[in-house]
């Protein structure tokens, strides 16, 4: 101990009074030694609590978003509470579960849904797992001070608590409401235990999987292209599952995961299997520690590995592709073309927003599985193209600019040039894509040449017309990070309100075309083409207004 070391007080508390600086207050704060009270659990609790407090404050700082989330769950929970089995407005019957059908069916559905819920919770946990040291809250402070075990446990607990608050909390409330409202036969005495077992094990399994996958793939979890495909396939899978619940649920019910359903059903009239329910509970409780230790071991391996070496070749390849797409033949000035090229490269390399493009897979999946093509299928495909093009590139321009915004604002490029750049980035890719998809899909689904052509015209026309409109929506309803942030993790996905506004705009502009499709069998082709023309006229008008608004906003933009 040197002379500078803090003196140790006789009561076991180390008191650092701090050295007086020659001027002003010292930077060394007075502290008390609490090393006897810094076990792993206590430190992990402190880390988790701090993380949760930050999450709550972030939520309070975004009251609109928080209100929407709360409202959504309030509506869902309210519907379960009042309209669920035994609820105030549910059909009268001898008991809550009887409204679902006979006891055997209830048993199958309980097991199947428990299994599906467990898988869903695993996926959510895996997607949200902390697989990079950079994602740990204040890692440079927390890790040296609290150690890896407490940091990982605290981080995991905080993530789990956040998810449980939103999803698990809802599930718990639903269980309680069923239990409370079901009368003599609808009680779920083990429901709470089952919810805990499902969510805790799913959380750990999800983390183990994500960390294991990350350790196998050297940090690059999935390439952007594969991520898109995976997201599309996942959405397709969800759609297939939702459409064919009658197949999926019994299938999952037969797996060991279905034992969680038995745990739910203990004490109810449904035919539960007590031994399997007990096995599920025992396995869950007994598996917590080994799973946690495995996850922690993987985290130590993944968090502290060397970063992957930079790969220059991919950058050149995508830049050349961008140059190919944005050819000089397009009638746009060079400055706008520079913006377009940059936006295109950003979008392709950080394709968070492109995940939204997977949503049409939901639609396609539903149609393919059901085999029931709606009459307006070609036009709807075209609409999806226009919708997706806006979301992919133009609906959050300020976030795309991010830390680079001062460069744009200190350039002589006018607002109109910026908007033209974004529009060019969007339409140069989307227009051929939309036309190709409709031209391929509509004839394959057996639609006439006329409807196929209408789909192409509407898709291309709306894509062109709504591109500037979506830029306008994006600058009007932006979602951005602080520009002063030293680490901005790429462009953010658009604001949910911008997404809603963009979707509404597309829907409104397409209404005449959809009406034309509906009226065509009765009034003939002219009704179809009148509707298409009206949609195109509206799109042109909206595009012009959107261009003016967005250009003016960009022109007036200043830093706060």
């Amino acid at each position, binding site marked *: 101990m040197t002379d500078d070391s803090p003196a140790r007080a006789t009561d076991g508390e180390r008191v650092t009074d701090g050295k007086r600086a020659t001027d002003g207050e010292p930077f060394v704060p007075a502290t008390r030694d609490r090393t006897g009270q810094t076990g792993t659990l206590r430190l992990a609790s402190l880390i988790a609590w701090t993380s949760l407090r930050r999450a709550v404050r972030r939520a309070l700082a975004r009251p609109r978003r928080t209100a929407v989330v709360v409202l959504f769950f309030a509506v869902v929970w309210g519907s379960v509470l009042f309209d669920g089995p035994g609820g105030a407005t549910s059909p009268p019957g001898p008991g809550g579960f009887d409204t679902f059908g006979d006891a055997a069916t209830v048993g199958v559905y309980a097991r199947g849904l428990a299994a599906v819920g467990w898988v869903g919770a695993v996926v959510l946990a895996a997607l949200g797992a902390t697989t990079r040291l950079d994602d740990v809250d204040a890692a440079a402070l927390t890790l040296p001070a609290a150690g890896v075990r407490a940091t990982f446990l605290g981080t995991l607990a905080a993530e789990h608590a956040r998810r449980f608050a939103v999803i698990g909390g809802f599930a718990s409330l639903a269980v309680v409401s069923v239990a409370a409202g079901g009368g003599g036969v609808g009680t779920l005495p083990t429901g709470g235990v089952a919810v805990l077992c499902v969510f805790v094990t799913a959380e750990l399994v999800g983390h183990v999987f994500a960390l294991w996958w990350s350790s196998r793939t050297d940090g690059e979890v999935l390439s952007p292209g594969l991520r898109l495909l995976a997201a599309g396939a996942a959405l397709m899978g969800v759609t297939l599952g939702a459409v064919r619940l009658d197949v999926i649920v019994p299938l999952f019910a037969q797996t060991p995961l279905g034992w969680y359903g038995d745990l739910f059903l203990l004490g109810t009239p449904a035919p539960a299997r007590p031994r399997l329910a007990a096995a599920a509970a025992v396995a869950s409780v007994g598996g917590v520690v080994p799973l946690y230790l495995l996850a922690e071991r993987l985290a130590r391996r993944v968090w502290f590995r060397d970063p992957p070496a*930079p790969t*220059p*070749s991919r*950058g*050149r390849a995508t*830049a050349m592709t961008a140059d190919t797409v944005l050819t000089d033949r397009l009638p746009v*000035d*060079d*400055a706008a*073309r*520079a*913006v377009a*090229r*940059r936006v295109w*490269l*950003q979008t392709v*390399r*950080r394709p968070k927003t492109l995940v939204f493009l997977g949503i049409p897979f939901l639609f396609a999946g539903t149609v393919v599985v059901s085999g029931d093509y709606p009459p307006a299928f070609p036009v709807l495909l075209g609409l999806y193209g226009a919708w997706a093009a806006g979301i992919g590139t133009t609906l959050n321009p300020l976030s795309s600019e*991010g*830390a*680079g*915004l*001062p*460069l*744009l*604002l*200190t*350039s*002589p*490029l*006018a607002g109109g*040039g910026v908007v033209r750049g974004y529009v060019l980035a969007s339409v140069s890719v989307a227009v051929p894509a939309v036309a190709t998809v409709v031209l391929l899909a509509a004839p394959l689904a057996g639609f006439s040449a006329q409807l196929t052509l209408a789909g192409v015209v509407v898709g291309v026309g709306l894509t062109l017309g709504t591109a500037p409109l979506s830029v306008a929506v994006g600058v009007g309803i932006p979602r951005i990070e602080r*520009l*002063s942030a*030293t680490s*901005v993790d*790429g462009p953010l996905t658009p604001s949910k309100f911008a997404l809603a506004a963009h979707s509404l705009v597309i829907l409104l502009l397409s209404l005449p075309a959809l009406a034309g499709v509906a009226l065509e069998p009765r009034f003939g082709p002219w009704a179809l083409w009148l509707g298409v023309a009206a949609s195109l006229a509206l799109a042109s008008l909206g595009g012009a207004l959107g261009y003016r608004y967005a250009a003016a906003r960009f*022109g007036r933009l*200043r*830093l*706060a």
Partner: protein
Amino acid sequence: MPEPVVADGGFTRPAPVARRMTDGGEVVETAGLRKEYGDTVAVASLDLSIPAGEVYGLLGPNGAGKTTTMRLLTTLVEPTAGTARICGTPVTNRRAVASEVGFLPEEPPLYDELTGREQLEYAAGIRGLSVDAETALTRAGLGDAVDRRIEAYSTGMAKRLGLLQATVHDPALLVLDEPTNGLDPRAARRVRETVQTVAARGTTVLLSTHVLPVAEAVSDRVGVFVDGRLRAEGPPTELRDHREDLEDAFLRLTDDRTATDRRPVAEVDD
């Protein structure tokens, strides 16, 4: 030995854009310039005049108004009151001023997803210019990182790239906010040399820094900001008293308890 970081690596321009103020003309002129954020006065009645080719160092404690002043002069924020002109053009005329100003904020305005080459080509492209990015980057010592994404750049590399793009259009005024912040001594020296090279060509440089030896080494004049006001300005040698260095002078000038006790020759009257 890499050369100073100036983007003269063979760029072409469709038309001459630099309109230099020579023969004693003022590149930066402000009169009563003021910026308020709600109740907070970031810049209070600033009268500043910087002639062509001068390197002017902005000094001051954190929150003194240096960055806001730079943002005002680069059109990134609008003044609450007063006027500011760059090469005779009011800063309210953003597009005209933009052609005359190059700006490197403390955090270089770069797009992480782009490579160095793409970033520099973009910076030139939005000004209607084309640039031989590879030559420029190589001359700036970034030859190995031409096609590497910026997210993999170190702080020094990002600063160099930011400086390159700030000079890509050969501006009349180069504004640098903490250009040596976070750089190692070698990189910091290259930035200093770049500033001197740019100034020798006739470009006016306005830079803010907390590194007083940097300010002393490169600045023809320095201005000391305190609480949004220009408390003193003059050549570094004149701001110092006989036996003190610039750090002592800075601490004296920015200390409220002593500032009124001793007024240097170049102290500015409010």
